[in-house]
């Protein structure tokens, strides 16, 4: 029997980016908020110590900051004809754990999606005709526009102090910025990062090829910055230990460096760490959440009653908790009915290697940062004519090499032996003069009828709950697009002066063992009505109106950018709707 805790106005499941932002907004609105976080508390000086945080073995190879598969895992298969097996060591994506969530270990690439990304289905249909899209592609419009989200993108960027160069300021195209971006109401809060030699050379070559290169928008700050909450971030030292790592000197935008210091001072906020939510509880009608049940680290079960439940866990676990709580209808890929688990997507990343003459080029690759880089957007979204190409989608292309770390950043030319003195010599010869960028083409993955999430019939977690099952594979559309983008990237490497270029386009089948990105999306998407979505445009559950589901779970498909900027913007958008509409009149904000 669960111990029943005192009632709260709001219970938040997961204290990552969205949980922190929502907690701050709703405590500002005067509500009593509790956040329940599965992982430990983490703070900079205690957990991301400058003396040891740059430890590739500990953090990258041994996954120090991540969820342990023994705590909870997922099962994986490429298609419905296979039997899914559990993931026993994370590969294709990484799952954050603890206060700050994935916001701790991200690279901090802070992008906005294109205006046409939000109206994708209608835009593509209008431009190319409905028959142009693959039969089984299930993309759809988001139900909101870029313009609606713009103030909230702005809020997230100013919270983070994002370093970048505006490309479209109030409609005026800005030199040096991304000319394809949507209209932004004001410049980035801080100027772009300084760029390394390899990044600069890429921009020069891209420009010579007629593209318009611009610095990647970065949450590793170019200079110190105090955000609107009064929290100060430091200047990035370009140490090259961002993704997989906590930042030791307060220069990466994370919940720890932007929101949590303010949240912790509030008497109407409480966080419980190392507590795992088992399920969202519903009343007898099944249409109203009464709170959550969670288990602490001693195994004791508690019930936390609340008026409002915010599901702010990672995308996969949002979907899993909905399914375990019996909220919404499970998606059936055969009929297309049901919304929970539907339109699951990931990202299509590809890249390549450029080997340069070691006597002429020294890129000093270890001087880097998670979101450093020069990019072009000519091949993203629908910025280019897909008509003759026979595919849709795209991504940004860039020299976005984040590090020169000793274990993994060890590319050698393809004809080199895999070990021994010749390998060592080749590594010595190439380490400083190689552009090694596995995610140079950061492209979309659109959604398909047969890519989805449901509960595994066989494998269970340590609490006896079924694991979430991923059914996912790349489709021809994405593989074609990836080959096209990778060719474009290789042309730029060639133009930079590489003596040898190795293309690494994305190839099927989807491989869960090798890292791609952690940008999993969808599974409980937002939309205009309960027949096409699990959530309304304010991220409110159609089925349980006092439940809001945050994060990339709501993306109907993934665009050709890193998702966190849009996740943050949606959190502010949803918070605004809760504060200005829901609290005045709790109930459905959109009537189906």
């Amino acid at each position, binding site marked *: 029997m669960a111990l029943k805790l005192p009632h709260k106005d709001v219970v938040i499941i997961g204290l990552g980016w969205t949980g922190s932002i929502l907690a701050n907004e709703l405590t500002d609105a005067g509500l009593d908020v509790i956040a329940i976080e599965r992982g430990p508390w983490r*703070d*900079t*000086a*205690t957990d991301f*110590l*400058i*003396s*040891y945080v740059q430890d590739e073995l500990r953090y990258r190879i041994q996954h120090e900051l991540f969820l342990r598969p023994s705590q909870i895992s997922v099962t994986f298969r490429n298609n419905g004809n296979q039997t899914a097996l559990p993931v026993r060591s994370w590969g294709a994506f990484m799952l954050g754990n603890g206060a700050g969530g994935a916001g701790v270990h991200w690279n901090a690439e802070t992008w906005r999606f294109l205006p046409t990304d939000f109206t994708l289905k209608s835009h593509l249909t209008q431009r190319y005709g409905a028959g142009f899209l693959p039969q089984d592609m299930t993309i759809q419009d988001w139900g909101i526009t870029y313009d609606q989200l713009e103030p909230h993108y702005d809020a997230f960027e100013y919270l983070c102090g994002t370093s970048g160069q505006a490309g479209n300021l109030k409609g005026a195209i800005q030199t040096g910025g991304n000319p394809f971006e949507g209209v932004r109401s004001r410049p980035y809060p801080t100027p772009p990062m300084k760029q390394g030699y390899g990044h600069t050379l890429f921009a020069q070559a891209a420009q010579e090829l007629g593209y318009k290169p611009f610095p990647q928008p970065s949450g590793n700050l170019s200079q*110190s910055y*105090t955000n609107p*909450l*009064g*929290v*100060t*971030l*430091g*200047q990035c*030292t370009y*140490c090259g230990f961002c993704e997989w790592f906590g930042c*030791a*000197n*307060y220069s990466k935008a994370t919940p720890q*460096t932007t929101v949590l*210091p*303010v949240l*912790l*001072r509030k008497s109407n906020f409480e966080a419980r760490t190392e507590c795992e939510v088992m399920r969202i509880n519903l009343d007898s009608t099944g249409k109203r959440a009464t709170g959550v049940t969670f288990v602490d680290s001693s195994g004791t079960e508690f019930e936390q009653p609340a008026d409002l439940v915010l599901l702010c866990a990672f995308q996969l676990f949002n979907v899993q908790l909905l399914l375990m709580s019996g909220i919404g209808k499970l998606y059936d890929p055969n009929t297309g009915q049901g919304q929970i688990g539907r339109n699951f997507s990931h990202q299509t990343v590809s890249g390549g290697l450029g080997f340069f003459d070691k006597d002429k080029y020294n890129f000093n690759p270890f001087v880097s940062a998670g979101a450093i880089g020069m990019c072009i957007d000519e091949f993203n979204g629908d910025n280019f004519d897909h008509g003759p190409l026979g595919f849709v989608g795209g991504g940004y292309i860039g020299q976005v090499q984040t590090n020169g770390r000793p274990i993994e950043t060890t590319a050698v030319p393809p004809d080199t032996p895999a070990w021994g003195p010749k390998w060592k010599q080749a590594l010595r010869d190439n380490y400083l003069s190689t552009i090694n960028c596995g995610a140079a083409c950061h492209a979309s993955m659109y959604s398909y009828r047969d890519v989805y999430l449901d509960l595994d019939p066989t494998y269970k977690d340590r609490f006896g709950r079924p694991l979430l099952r991923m059914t996912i594979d790349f489709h021809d559309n994405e593989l074609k697009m990836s080959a096209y983008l990778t060719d474009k990237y290789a042309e730029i490497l060639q133009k930079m002066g590489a003596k040898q270029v190795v293309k690494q386009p994305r190839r099927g089948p989807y491989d869960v063992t090798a890292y791609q990105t952690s940008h999993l999306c969808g599974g409980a998407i937002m939309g205009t009505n309960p027949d096409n979505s699990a959530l309304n445009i304010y991220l409110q559950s159609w089925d349980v109106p006092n439940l809001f589901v945050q994060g990339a779970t709501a993306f109907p498909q993934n665009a050709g950018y890193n998702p966190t900027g849009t996740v943050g913007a949606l959190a502010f958008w949803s918070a605004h709707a809760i504060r200005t509409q829901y609290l005045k009149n709790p109930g459905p904000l959109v009537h189906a």
Partner: protein
Amino acid sequence: MRDKKHWPLACVFGTIALCLPLAGADAAGIDSQNFGQVERGHYLTVVGDCAACHTLPGSGHAFAGGRPIETPFGTLFAPNITPDPTTGIGAWTDDEFVNALTKGTGRNGTRLYPAMPYTYYTRLTRDDALAIRSYLNSIPAVDNPVQVDQLPFPFSMRWTLAVWDQLFFTPGTFHPDPNKSAEWNRGAYLAEGPGHCGMCHTPKNFLGADETSQKLQGYALQGWFAPNITDDARRGLGGWSVDDIVAYLKTGHNKTSAATGLMSETLNLSTSKMSDEDLKAIAVYLKDQSAGGNANKTASADPPDQAVMKAGAQIYADECAGCHAADGKGEARLFPSLNGSPVVQQTDPTTILHVVLRGALSVATKPAPTAPAMPQFAWILNDDEVAAVVTYIRNSWGNSAPPVTASQVEKTRQMLLERSD
């Protein structure tokens, strides 16, 4: 252990008290409906930081006492000063209250331990003392008996305090200096009276009394060194403007420094809640305090060993420069500047060793909520390495302070191991 309050002062043996408090009738002056007076009294309890001792953190009962107070002579427990008639001071007359505050005399002739800063509060005007009383009358009475006297023999003998007072206590209200501005005098009143800055920042003799000849020149207590806050250019506030001091006292941070340690609590409970005018007055007064014979010394007599400096530079580059930068200047509001820092250059290195060995969390305030923290290095640097990097920091970029030895580091390490706070 954050709920323990520490004071440097206490006192010892002597002869029998000769004077007794007057238990007269209440003097006119308190009007429970005079809300201006109540509010002024409230403000003065903030300036006087009364809550630091008289409120047990986390108890939820303001001024109900019970907080342990560490002194070099043992632990005292702060009394209940709520209006409860039996366990608090509700039955006290106003004169008894004023005498306790300004003369160190309790009821029935007992004497207060000078952990209660009556040596400073004596400068309060009677009006201000009554305003404090008026505020304390207005707060909820809490029934909370506190056994104050828990000092070991011979310090348990309160009668000895009369001798201490004879030797070290000069009663008397504040006298403005007609040659100084009104602002200066306001600052002097606050700093030397209710604010009792010297309680931590003035060196003490072996009986725990202020060395008045070295006023505000710094004092080691409770694992820290409360730094010199005279206008000394190197070790004091000489390099800070009045605005820098105000920003520090208001927010805990200014462009070069951040408050931590014992000052964090003072900031939270007291200075951050004071008016800008009063903080400026205090700053003006402190900026006018001469550093005495130690003023503006530029070079240490004992230049550091070059091999030690070289080792220190290497450790600094590896462990410190990521935040404090190669030039030691750090980053405003985030990483304190070591370059020109008075705290770094105090003759007594207790604070810098404390911060390096154990780390430190800077204070969070509403205007500066970030609270950046210094990680601890005790586990990764040995005594020689700490000595080298601290010596390097104390003698680079124009800094100058005596080199630190491995045995000083060892001693501080040991002291910190024994401290639970």
